[in-house]
């Protein structure tokens, strides 16, 4: 959408309104998630929360991120959480009468400090912000000539920041292996010799 179009002004206002409404929804959903004790409802709301944040990323022009968040957050995360609930509990235990005043105070003070910090930050969408002055102009101007793909996110991801992505892939690999070790290894061993587990096995076979 070219910015210089006649309707540019109203477009921007519209975008602002969508932005405000979506973020307000996210806050409402997040608070509902904190207050609910039925974990099934919490997981469903977390799917909605992810979907809202994906819409938010579209509004903020980060389509690749929106795509990923929609697939990962609303899809896989929800299913994994449901899988966990099936293996654990559906309800959270009611709280022991203890008004969490101290944590609330900590959170409010931290939040206030952060809000104070934002007062000096460049405003939303400001093209003069420091983040747009360094590195990014080079990617935008030269990546079609140096790397080729029209999608700059792909060129930066795979080429300019290839090391970074290699590291991220390794993290995913490591996390996956860790989950496999935690969840599948023990069951198989236990099925073969029931009482044995880890260091206990020697003692148990006596």
């Amino acid at each position, binding site marked *: 959408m070219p910015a210089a179009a006649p309707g540019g002004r109203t477009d921007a206002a519209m975008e602002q309104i969508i932005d405000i409404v979506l973020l307000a929804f996210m806050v409402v959903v997040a608070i509902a998630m904190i207050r609910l004790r039925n974990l099934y409802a919490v997981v469903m709301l977390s799917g909605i929360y992810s979907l809202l944040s994906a819409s938010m990323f579209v509004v903020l022009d*980060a389509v690749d991120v929106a795509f990923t968040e929609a697939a990962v957050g609303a899809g896989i995360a929800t299913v994994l*959480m449901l899988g966990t609930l099936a293996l654990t509990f559906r309800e959270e235990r009611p*709280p022991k009468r203890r008004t969490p005043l101290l944590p609330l105070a900590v959170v409010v003070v*931290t939040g206030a400090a952060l809000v104070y910090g934002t007062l000096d930050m460049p405003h939303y969408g400001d093209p003069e912000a420091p983040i747009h002055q360094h590195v*990014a102009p080079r990617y*935008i101007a030269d990546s079609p000539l140096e790397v080729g793909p029209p999608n*700059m996110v792909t060129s930066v991801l795979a080429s300019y920041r290839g090391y970074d992505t290699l590291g991220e892939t390794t993290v995913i690999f490591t996390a996956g292996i860790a989950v496999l070790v935690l*969840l599948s290894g023990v069951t198989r061993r236990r099925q073969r010799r029931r009482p044995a587990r880890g260091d206990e096995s020697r003692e148990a076979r006596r």
Partner: protein
Amino acid sequence: MLETVLGLYNYWIVIVLMMAGFYTVIVRGNLVKKVVGLNIFQTSVFLLYITMGTVEGGTAPIVDAGADLYTNPLPSVLILTAIVVGIATTALGLALTVRIRESYGTLEEDEIIEIEDRMDGEV
């Protein structure tokens, strides 16, 4: 005044979400709820980065003949990988939760600590 509020609105919402997640993590004893809190916190960080990368009137960073102003691609790249890494680490957290439930029969933090204390007393 209105301009300041509108210009910083996104950051403030990010802070509210961040604190909501933080609060869940420190107050709630249920481990699944803690993971959910961490996810809320995580998403707020994603929003912070993407908000910073946005340019007024810009378009998605895909080369197009009609466009001359693009959003900053760098935050997109960082957050795109962070989301997938985030789900992998969340899965790890959930796997630990499942194992804890199998060993202790509970997911409430104080009950787990109680069982641990009792075990220490027996030894």
